[in-house]
């Protein structure tokens, strides 16, 4: 690739979201409060995407936003709630109404499905799920949800979970160079496997750094450029969640969000104010306010 082709990897959030057709399947990065690609969820909502399937282990505010705004139709996940605060209210309403269908797995099962997808093999064996309704009940995958087999080497029962190779992987990282080499600080959750399992990978990064910075510590690169199709550079892309070494979560905002989602009206207020009511991610950040954002900045040596 020439220098200009390399730089073509860097696109805007709007351009990135436009690449995702209705009906796509997305691996969704981040885990719990850490590195959630909230800005990408917002933009999918602004562009009125429909019928997406989301694959992840555990996500929280981002899933609430995507099911609340009717962007995500199906979820293959292990966990959705707002940890420490309570149930995922939007999801609860959307599941009760039948608007959203969920296929239930455990965290290990989903992580192994991404590992299998990254390795390009059809399934992965696990020792979880067995004996429970996770085996016997399926929402829509039917007999493609999983298989319990007898180990052909004679080791008893084992559960095979099908690999996932979704249309896109969406992953949020701390820093990236213009080629796409990405480094993550702190835990990786399931993002190593998840970033490699999608047919296209879009990386959201807090910071663009020089190639020398990456190549100075190549054993810290967790996503080599060769996997990366598109790069979006954005500050505070995970707000109100956290990004290790960059900023802490915004507990006040989170509590406000969770409280509003308790009713459909409250959720619509948040949706129309914070997501549809702004032009873009910077509009959202302006609304949150830079004083507040700066107050969340991580301090050394704690990283939060």
């Amino acid at each position, binding site marked *: 690739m020439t220098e200009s082709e390399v730089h073509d990897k860097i696109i805007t959030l709007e351009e990135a979201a436009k690449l995702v057709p209705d009906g796509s399947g997305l691996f969704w990065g981040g885990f719990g409060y850490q590195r959630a690609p909230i800005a990408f969820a917002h933009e999918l909502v602004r562009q009125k995407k429909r019928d997406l399937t989301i694959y992840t282990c555990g996500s929280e505010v981002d899933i609430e936003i995507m099911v609340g705004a009717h962007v995500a139709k199906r979820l293959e996940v292990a966990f959705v709630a707002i*940890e420490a605060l309570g149930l995922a209210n939007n999801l609860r309403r959307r599941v009760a109404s039948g608007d959203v269908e969920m296929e239930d797995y455990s965290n290990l099962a989903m992580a192994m499905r991404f590992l299998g997808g990254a390795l390009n093999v059809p399934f992965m064996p696990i020792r979880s799920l067995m004996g429970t309704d*996770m085996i016997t009940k399926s929402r829509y995958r039917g007999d493609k949800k999983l298989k319990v087999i007898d180990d052909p080497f004679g080791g008893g029962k084992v559960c095979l979970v099908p690999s996932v190779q979704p249309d896109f992987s969406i992953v949020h990282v701390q820093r990236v160079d213009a080629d796409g080499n990405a480094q993550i600080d702190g835990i990786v959750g399931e993002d190593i496997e998840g970033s490699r399992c999608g047919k296209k990978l879009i990386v959201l990064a807090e910071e663009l750094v020089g190639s020398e910075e990456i190549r100075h510590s190549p054993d810290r690169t967790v996503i080599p450029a060769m996997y990366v199709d598109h790069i979006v550079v954005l500050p505070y892309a995970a707000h109100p969640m956290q990004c290790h070494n960059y900023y802490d979560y915004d507990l006040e905002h989170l509590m406000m969000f969770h409280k509003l989602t308790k009713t459909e009206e409250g959720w619509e207020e948040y949706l129309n104010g914070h997501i549809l009511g702004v032009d873009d991610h910077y509009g959202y950040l302006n609304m949150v306010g830079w004083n507040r954002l700066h107050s969340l900045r991580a301090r050394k040596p704690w990283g939060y």
Partner: protein
Amino acid sequence: MVEYSKIEFLAACASRHVRDGENVFGGTGLPLLAALLAKETHAPNANLISEAGFIDARPKNVPLSVADSRYYFGCSAAIGLIETLGFILQAGRIDVGFLGAAQIDEYGNLNTSYIGSFEQPKVRLPGSGGGNDIASSAKRLIIMMTHDKRKFVKKLDYMTSPGHLEGPGSREKWGLIGGGPEVVITDMCQMDFDPKTLKIRLMSVHPGYTVDDVLENVMFDLIVPDDVPVTPEPTQEQIEIMHRLDPHGVYLGKGE
């Protein structure tokens, strides 16, 4: 006499089930507080692990999320889910895991997924997360629940995580490598499991409650031994340590 809140009581009670040197899945909330309290008292070498990827964590501030950066500072390794749930948990290296649930049955099987029928769920709950994995593979399971009669059911609406399944031999049939639930701690009592039948059994009642209080608040047949002791109260030292660990009352509550 030591004064304590309900939450302090439960955390102290749970912390006694963590033994020194054990590998513990901490999670967040009360279990985390219990594990941290154990580390500060009788189990200084407990290895606190968060499924998000933190190993031997020594958080200075209580984390709100299993992935919270508060777990990072001072930990010995920060990796990911394949590490914690695969290499560590599934390989049989976790001594004790904590779980909560919306429903539990008499074999300690847990529901954290749906209230109502699977086909037409009334309430979608958080789902398994790592719960099914922990229940399948941790050597011992400590279950913490608020005591509400509707949660102690004869039949689960959905079985998310395996307890003792249908009793003796059924975990083995499925090749589950963990030992299953050891104790259930509620705000009324502690329950364990009868070794022969693997059915749930009253272990101790908390100060202020009676055996009858408990029996009125479960929907299954609870085994009641001849002798049901009163659950020990927290010590002043435990209370003080908890407040040092959670100075802002994130889990302990501000007013208590």
